[in-house]
């Protein structure tokens, strides 16, 4: 993969984990007076500003094409990550469990299938091939690979779930749905590999039993997602999604 760049020390220090605080938005807002009260409690939360109209960023575009490009970008990132996993010391080690190797090979194929599918489906409307920056990741270390795999998969699920509301063509909504559940399957298994029975966790799912968002995935807006994803994209490949606020 010629697109994968070698890390520099400076970039490695800048790189941070993908776990950014959830900025709560409005999808709990359909359930009546209780939800209104919840909004009151959340009213004190800060709302970060996200970059906009930065000429150094690649904007994913607008409409369904923009959402599909957004998905294409995330799939490129995932596909590049797992492709690099396949050549890394953790995956190639004779000591690595055969079942785990099968899991990572399967996921690498799935993500490449997703990325190449979007590239073909978008045709001339596709954004450019992106250059990742994985300098923060130690591909020889099981824990590093698993933790970043978890971060990328959970981010992907939150991204697709948060993008659904912007999709105009029902066929594209179903298409996104066909993929997000596979990402969720990946995320759950990776999480179980890290710590058994964490396939659902309160970092990604609202653990309330009674609220309007009870036991639902914490979806993220495109701006929130790209803030994380851009940490793993090289300069010139970082993204914006200015049409989706």
């Amino acid at each position, binding site marked *: 993969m010629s697109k994968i760049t070698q890390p520099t020390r400076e970039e490695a220090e800048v790189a941070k984990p993908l776990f950014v605080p959830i900025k709560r938005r409005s999808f709990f807002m*359909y*359930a009546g007076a209780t*939800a209104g009260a919840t909004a009151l409690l959340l009213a004190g939360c800060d709302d970060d500003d996200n970059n906009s109209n930065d000429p150094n960023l690649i904007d994913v575009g607008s409409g369904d094409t923009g959402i599909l490009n957004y998905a294409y970008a995330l799939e490129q990132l995932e596909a590049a990550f797992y492709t690099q996993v396949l050549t890394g010391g953790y995956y190639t080690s004779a000591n690595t469990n055969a079942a785990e190797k099968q899991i990572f090979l399967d996921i690498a*194929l799935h993500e490449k*299938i997703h990325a190449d599918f979007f590239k073909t489906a978008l045709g001339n409307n596709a954004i450019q091939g992106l250059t990742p920056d994985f300098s923060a990741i130690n591909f020889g270390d099981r824990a590093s690979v698993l933790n970043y795999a978890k971060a990328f998969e959970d981010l992907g699920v939150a991204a697709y779930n948060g993008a659904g509301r912007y999709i105009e063509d029902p066929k594209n909504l179903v298409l996104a749905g066909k993929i997000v559940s596979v990402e969720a399957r990946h995320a759950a298994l990776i999480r179980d590999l890290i710590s058994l029975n964490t*396939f659902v966790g309160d970092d990604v799912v609202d653990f309330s039993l009674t609220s309007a968002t009870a036991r639902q995935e914490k*979806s993220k807006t495109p701006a929130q997602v790209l803030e994380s994803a851009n940490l793993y994209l090289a300069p010139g490949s970082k993204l914006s999604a200015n049409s989706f606020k």
Partner: protein
Amino acid sequence: MDLFKIISDIEKVDPEVYERFDTRRRVFKHMSGLGKKVTAATLPGLLSAMFQKAYGQTSGLNADIVATLNLALQLEYLERNFYQTALATTSLNLGSDAAAIAIIRDDEIGHIAALKQVLGTQAFNGGNDVPAAAFDYTAGGKLPNPFASTANFYATAQSFVDTGMRAYKGGAPKLMSNKDILQAALNIHSVEARHSSHVRMVRRGGLTAAGSTTDQSKPKSWISGNENGGPVPAVTAPVYNAGNPATDFPAESNIMQAGVNVQTNTTPPMNQTITTAAATEAFDEPLDADTVKAIGRMFRSNTTLGQSLFA
């Protein structure tokens, strides 16, 4: 209590708050019309009515949304009672996985609560709970008792989680007229997929057991092909087969996505091969409401309430 300060604060987390009150002007109008009657005693009631109007949509749900969410609700009852019964059956030794089944059970409890809040009085069974007695988890004797062995339990659990995942996926387009409800349903859909992943992992023998594309009793965490019909094909094949129409609801073995053959379209990474299995695994498929109901009807009991399920 400064009402306008409160609304202004809400706006910080919910920029659409004024739209929910129709318009800012309408809020003022609403208030001013009642101005003389507003006292310390009536204010809480007035506030509640305003928020109910702004955030509650029970009266405004269209028929598609009601039908789609009620089908989801019935599937959630099917699952919650299934896991609850398993956890209460002491002879069924779930071992360390009991904790996981409790998480899944709790997820379904939360989904039921959320769906009922949206549906209000239009919720299935008048919003009343649907107990385990409404279900027959042997599908009229066609399946072995799922609470008699862990093998039986995980086999049936797999069928339920995969049906639920396909049902939410198929129902999503019918929710597009209400973006908040759509988003909530998507946020449930992915949780169901997480359940499926875990249940399949336990069923194949745990984290160190490799999945198989030929032995359905050792499922991967993702749906591979048509799963050879699933645990008991006479009952479970519809869980993986095409719905109706098949062009919109293809079988899980589908490899054509938006006109693209995703097997031949893909350049494999690192000298690997894109197998047909991988091409099917990379995409889950939706199922239509009628096919989901037909699957559900296999699992209802002969009680009056049971017979009203999945109608």
